[in-house]
């Protein structure tokens, strides 16, 4: 039962994430799921969530395979690196992780496109990276809250 509820939660999350990405172009909403999975420290769940996020982002994207994989691996490094220095609930920790992930989004997308001689709109990429960095904290809070509600229901059951 708990497993089914967990799977249902993640399915709903990915559905909402894909719809949100179709409305706000160029922004990674699935990253929030990866952060939530990192916080929960369940290796199997984390592996599935990262694999699903990579396949969805790479499949629907227009760049050759590579940047999503690199981005999520570095998201893990940034997350653990930040947690070694700050509390996970600390505002500065959340701010630092968001800013770094926004910057990494810009660097990796530009690097992979440039490696394949594809021309990208730098201004648009920059704006999207800033929006990405600004959106992470509130969405992270929201997803954390919803996940917490789901956990409470799980415990009651």
């Amino acid at each position: 039962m708990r497993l089914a509820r967990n799977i249902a939660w993640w399915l709903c999350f990915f559905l909402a994430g894909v719809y949100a990405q179709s409305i706000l172009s160029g922004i990674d909403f699935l990253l929030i799921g990866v952060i939530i999975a990192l916080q929960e420290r369940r290796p199997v769940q984390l592996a599935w969530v990262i694999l699903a996020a990579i396949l969805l982002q790479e499949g629907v994207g227009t760049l050759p395979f590579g940047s999503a994989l690199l981005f999520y691996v570095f998201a893990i490094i940034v997350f653990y690196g930040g947690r070694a220095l700050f509390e996970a609930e600390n505002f500065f920790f959340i701010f630092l992780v968001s800013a770094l992930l926004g910057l990494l989004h810009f660097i990796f997308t530009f690097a992979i496109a440039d490696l394949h001689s594809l021309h990208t709109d730098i201004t648009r990429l920059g704006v999207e990276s800033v929006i990405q960095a600004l959106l992470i904290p509130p969405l992270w809070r929201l997803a954390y809250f919803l996940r917490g509600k789901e956990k409470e229901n799980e415990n009651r059951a």
Partner: protein
Amino acid sequence: MTLKRAFALLVLGLFVYLGLYTWNERTGSLNSLAENTGLEIVGAILLPAEWVTSGISDTWSRYVDLVNVREERDILAERLENATAAINSLHEDRHELLRLRELMHFSEPKDWTAIGARVIGTRIGPQAALNSVILNKGFSDGALPGTPVVTRLGVVGQVLRSNPNFSTVLLVNDPSCRIAVISQETRFPGIIGGQGLGKPPMVYYVPPNAQVKIGEFLITSGLDGLFPKGIPVAWVEDARPSDTSPFQTVTAWPLASLSGLEEVLLLQPAAGRKENPFNRFVDDLPLLPEATPQSLTPALPLSSATHPAGGAPQAGPSPEQGE
């Protein structure tokens, strides 16, 4: 975890990543895996939403929002009559062209068939760095990479990636898109390439002595081997000599409205077909006995809707049209 161990893990991870990256460069296996899973899943998620939104908008526009429908119907009926008359007047020219072609032993242009497809999404996710849309047709429907994508107004782009049921189209305003074109009147050749959102695409390699006319149409030249010859692409906005290059600097706005695309056509060569369905449609039109030179004077709907010199209410595409 010690610092030494973390560093070793990082180096190992980097090697694994570079190994995967180069292996994918050579085989394309990971690209295919991502297309066949990620794009398929996202397409399946977006399709119901597209049905719902198009259903609601169709219901609204067909059954609720009927203001001015009668006036619009009268205008359209008049325009249809004029267009039919214009086509009728071109019948003789067309037959003469066919006769002359045969006389000069010119080979028949290859026939193309058009398959309708619906746009179910635009750029989705951070990896969609190029200007693109997602279609509900994949390679099982003939949407192979490189397939030309058009609307009735002109070229939209070409298929970039596809899986069995969905495909991604690279739009003509993207800096990575290149299409061989030729101007309709002055016949100067060039290659059109996008410059990004809100900017007119550039026409590269236009000779310095070419007499470029502002407002003239650019059509596909067919020299790229992908697009059939003669499809409208853009209209020339500006042309000036370059200070740094031996070629002219020419900018042109796409004729097809790239923002808010809903339906498009995928063009495919019709192997073994002698007759073009569009030609049959033209031949089947009834001759109008009352067709007069006066009834032929209004411009064709295409030019009046999009050409800057068309003199229609929507006088020329705005910068937003290129988006």
